[in-house]
C-alpha cells in the first residue's frame, strides 16, 4: 500500500543565507550570494573563472570531538543541517534510534579538502614514510561520508542511502527517501546533500569551458540563467536537509507539516555523459507527473535546474515547454547562489517550500533579456505574490541523470 509522504522539517546553509529569514530577504531584495573565488593556494591562479557561490555567514560547528574527528568540511555542513532539522522536528531520541528513521544523504564526492591533503602527501618530496595518511582520512574522504557521519552523530540505525550523482545527488536523496517512506520501508527519512568549497570542481567545469568568466569583476551579475548574456555556471557550496515522514505517523505525533512530496522520477539520457538532452529531460518530467498522478496543468511553478550554460538552458526550456506548456512560472534559483552541486536539489526544494509558505515566487536573478531560444516558457521576471500549490523541482547531472520532484503545499 502506498503511503502519503509529508515534509516536517527543513534546514539549509546556502550562499544567500543560513536561516529562512535571511534566504527570503535575499530572494525578495534580489541579493546574490556569488562572490570572488577564495584563494586555495593551489588551483585558483590556473582557472579562468574567478567567481564562487560562497557561504559567508558564520556557523558554529560546536560538535564534540568524538563526532568531529571523522568529518571533513562537507560532513560538518551535512551534520549541521541535519542537527537543525531534527531539533526543529521534535522527534524524540527513542524514535531516531529505533530503526524506523533512515538517512538518504550524499555529496559529489567525499571531502575534497581531505583528498587534496592525501594527494599532497603522495606527491610531496618528503622522504618521511610514517604518519603520512591519517587513520580517519578515509572516513572523511569516502563518498558516503555525509550519510554515515549523520548516522553516528544522531544514533540513526535505519537504512542508509548515499547517492553521489553530482548535481542530482540531493534530489535523488529526497526521491529515494520518499520512496522508502511511500512503500512503508521506513516511517521517516532525513534526506539531503552537501558540498564544500572546492576548486577542483571549478577547474573541471572550467576545462570544459562551462564556467562563467565574463563577470569575474562583477560576481553578483552571474550566473544568468536563460539570459542572452549567460556565459556558464558558477560553482558554489552549501547543504540542505529535509525530514520526510509518513503522513499518519506525523499527524499522530502532532508534527508541523510544511509540504507533501507527491511524486518523483529519475531516468538517464542513455548516451552522452555530458551534453544536456531535451528528450531525456522531457521524459523525466513526464514520468514525475505520472508518478504524482497529476496532469501538467496542475503544476504552478517549475524550479528549473538552469545552470546558465549555453546549451543546457535551451534544452531545459524546450523540455519544460514540451511537458508543461507556457503556464507555470519558471525560476532558476541558481541565479542567486551559483550551482551548489550535490546540495542544489535539496536547497532548491527548501527554497520552493519557503516561497510556498510566503505566497511569493522569486524571479530569476540577472534575467535582463531572455534568450529567444528559451523564450517559449513563462519566466518569472519580477517578484510575484502568487500561491504555489504544486511545484516541480528538476535537476540534471553529468552522467545523463535527470530527476523531477513534485511537491505540494500541504492542505
Amino acid at each position, binding site marked *: 500500500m502506498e503511503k502519503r509522504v509529508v515534509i516536517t522539517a527543513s534546514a539549509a546553509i546556502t550562499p544567500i543565507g543560513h536561516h529562512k529569514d535571511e534566504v527570503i530577504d535575499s530572494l525578495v531584495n534580489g541579493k546574490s550570494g556569488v562572490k570572488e573565488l577564495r584563494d586555495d593556494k593551489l588551483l585558483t591562479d590556473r582557472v579562468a573563472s574567478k567567481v564562487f557561490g560562497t557561504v559567508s555567514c558564520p556557523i558554529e560547528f560546536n560538535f564534540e570531538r568524538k563526532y568531529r*574527528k571523522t568529518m571533513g568540511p562537507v560532513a560538518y555542513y551535512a551534520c549541521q543541517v541535519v542537527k537543525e532539522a531534527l531539533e526543529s522536528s521534535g522527534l524524540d531520541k527513542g524514535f531516531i534510534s529505533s530503526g524506523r528513521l533512515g538517512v538518504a544523504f550524499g555529496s559529489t564526492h567525499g571531502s575534497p579538502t581531505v583528498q587534496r591533503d592525501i594527494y599532497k602527501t603522495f606527491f610531496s618530496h618528503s622522504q618521511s*614514510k610514517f604518519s603520512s595518511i591519517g587513520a580517519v582520512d578515509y572516513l572523511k574522504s569516502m563518498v558516503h561520508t555525509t550519510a554515515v557521519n549523520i548516522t553516528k552523530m544522531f544514533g540513526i540505525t535505519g537504512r542508509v542511502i548515499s547517492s553521489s550523482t553530482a548535481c542530482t545527488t540531493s534530489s535523488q536523496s529526497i526521491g529515494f527517501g520518499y520512496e522508502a517512506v511511500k512503500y512503508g520501508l521506513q516511517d521517516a527519512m532525513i534526506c539531503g546533500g552537501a558540498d564544500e568549497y572546492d576548486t577542483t570542481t571549478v577547474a573541471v567545469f572550467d576545462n570544459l569551458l562551462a564556467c562563467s568568466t565574463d563577470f569575474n569583476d562583477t560576481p553578483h551579475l552571474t550566473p544568468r540563467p536563460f539570459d542572452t548574456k549567460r556565459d556558464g555556471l558558477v560553482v558554489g557550496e552549501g547543504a540542505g536537509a529535509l525530514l520526510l515522514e509518513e503522513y499518519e505517523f506525523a499527524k499522530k505525533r502532532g508534527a508541523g507539516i510544511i509540504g507533501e512530496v507527491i511524486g518523483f522520477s529519475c531516468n538517464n539520457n542513455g548516451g552522452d555523459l555530458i551534453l544536456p538532452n531535451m528528450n531525456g529531460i522531457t521524459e523525466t518530467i513526464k514520468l514525475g507527473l505520472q508518478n504524482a498522478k497529476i496532469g501538467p496543468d496542475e503544476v504552478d511553478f517549475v524550479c528549473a535546474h538552469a545552470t546558465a550554460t549555453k546549451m543546457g538552458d535551451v534544452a531545459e526550456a524546450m523540455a519544460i515547454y514540451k511537458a508543461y506548456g507556457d503556464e507555470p512560472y519558471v525560476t532558476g534559483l541558481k541565479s542567486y547562489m551559483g550551482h551548489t552541486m550535490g546540495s542544489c536539489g535539496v536547497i532548491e526544494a527548501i527554497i520552493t517550500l519557503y516561497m510556498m509558505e510566503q505566497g511569493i515566487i522569486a524571479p530569476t536573478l540577472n534575467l535582463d533579456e531572455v534568450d529567444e531560444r528559451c523564450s517559449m516558457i513563462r519566466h518569472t521576471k519580477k517578484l510575484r505574490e502568487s500561491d504555489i500549490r504544486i511545484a516541480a523541482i528538476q535537476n540534471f547531472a553529468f552522467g545523463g541523470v535527470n530527476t523531477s520532484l513534485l511537491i505540494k503545499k500541504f492542505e
Partner: protein
Amino acid sequence: MTREEIQSKILIVFKEEFEITNPGLDENLTEKYDFDSIDALELLGEIETLLGSELTRDEKKASMDIRTINQICDYIEQLAKKRIS
C-alpha cells in the same frame, strides 16, 4: 627519551589531539574517555612522529591491548630502547 619525557609528551598529545586533559595514568581510556579504535590508530601516527620512525606491522599489532597512559608509555619506552640498540 626518559620515562618522564615520554609521559609528558603523551599527555600533551592527549590534550591537544584528543582533547583529553590530565587522564589518570591507570584509567581505562576507552571506558572513561570514549577513546576508540580510530583514536588508537591516530595515536600510533603520533607515536611514529615522536620516535621519528615508522612502526612495523608487528609493533602496531603489539599495541592492540593497550588501555592506559602507563601502558602507552611502557610501549613507547620499549620501542625507543629497541631503536637505540
